[in-house]
């Protein structure tokens, strides 16, 4: 009995500190990454999705609030900013290829970005989604901070946009390669560009784990589509209000 009390007091002490949640985050990611490599990089065995699942199960079962968890995990979250800046390096290294493919990059950017927004709108109409949820969904292919800003601008709910944006990233990273294989696309720059354009950072991380060229073009698409979405969504939104 004393033993149990002691263990419980250790747990109460540990769960209040960031260290426990940091260790849990890295540990579950390593499990996810191990399974991903074991599956020979099979896209459905996504390391991000696996670690999210493990951590969520722990939090739900131990009745820990997300805020408590994030208080520890925010140190990992913080690195997302510097990592975004670091994406300049692969883009810099492949700058010659990017210049060479400038035409295909611009055409696919505009078409892809428009398609992501308009198809989301069309499906929302078909499924009769409420306006506020619809507005929160429109910018979902942009990277989360941009998407949240746009959502706020057009009357969506930024936190809902954040959720939908992350779901978009995980969907793209998990299922995108099936579409690319189905279409028999071999061009690594095109494959990466598609993944990065539609599913931003999580798609980029996936592309980068497979092939460097794909990773670079995914990172490029992430940056470019962030900007394109920020221009196109408010523009289309104004057009929509006119008609």
């Amino acid at each position, binding site marked *: 009995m004393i033993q149990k009390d002691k263990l419980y007091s250790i747990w109460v002490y540990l769960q209040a500190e960031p260290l426990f949640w940091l260790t849990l985050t890295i540990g579950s990611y390593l499990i996810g990454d191990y399974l991903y490599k074991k599956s020979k990089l099979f896209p459905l065995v996504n390391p991000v999705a696996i*670690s999210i699942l493990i951590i969520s199960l722990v939090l739900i079962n131990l009745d820990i609030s997300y805020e408590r*968890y994030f208080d520890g995990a925010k140190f990992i979250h913080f*690195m997302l900013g510097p990592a975004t800046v670091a994406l300049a390096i692969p883009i810099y290294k492949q700058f010659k290829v990017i210049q060479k493919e400038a035409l295909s990059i611009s055409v696919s950017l505009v*078409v*892809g970005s428009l398609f992501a927004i308009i198809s989301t709108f069309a499906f929302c109409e078909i499924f009769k989604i409420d306006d506020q949820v619809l507005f929160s969904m429109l910018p979902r292919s942009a990277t989360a901070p941009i998407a949240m800003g746009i959502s706020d601008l057009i009357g969506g709910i930024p936190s809902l946009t954040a959720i939908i944006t992350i779901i978009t990233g995980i969907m793209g990273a998990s299922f995108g390669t099936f579409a690319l294989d189905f279409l028999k696309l071999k061009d690594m720059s095109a494959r990466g560009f598609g993944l990065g354009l539609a599913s931003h950072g999580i798609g980029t991380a996936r592309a980068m784990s497979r092939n460097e060229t794909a990773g670079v073009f995914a990172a490029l698409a992430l940056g470019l589509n962030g*900007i394109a979405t920020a221009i196109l969504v408010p523009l289309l939104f104004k057009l929509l209000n006119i008609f």
Partner: protein
Amino acid sequence: MLRAIFVIFFFQLLGEALKKFFEMLIPGPVIGLILLLITLIFLKRFKTRAINNLKSDVLNTSNYILSYLSLLFVPIGVGVVMHLSYLENNLFKVLIIVFISTVLTIGLTAFLMEKINKRINKK
């Protein structure tokens, strides 16, 4: 390593400051990315030893950070799962819409790009 981390943080800081100053919708880190890219291209003209050393330091550190890029999405991802109830009865519909639209966008974009690249390379 430390110098490279300083450089990367510094460019993010610059990006955040510019974003705030011009009240831009683009996130600070993306502005930092663009600024760092411009700086790297500009520095190509100067091939002194100190610059080359710093550059290779930044290159190595960035590659190291980027090899763990997906880990960095885990904390927000957990938030998504914990807050799925926000979507209420829309959850299932939203998942289907996101799935179809995302997969189609990826396919269409990559298809278009590969076809254009092929046509250009033929010429």
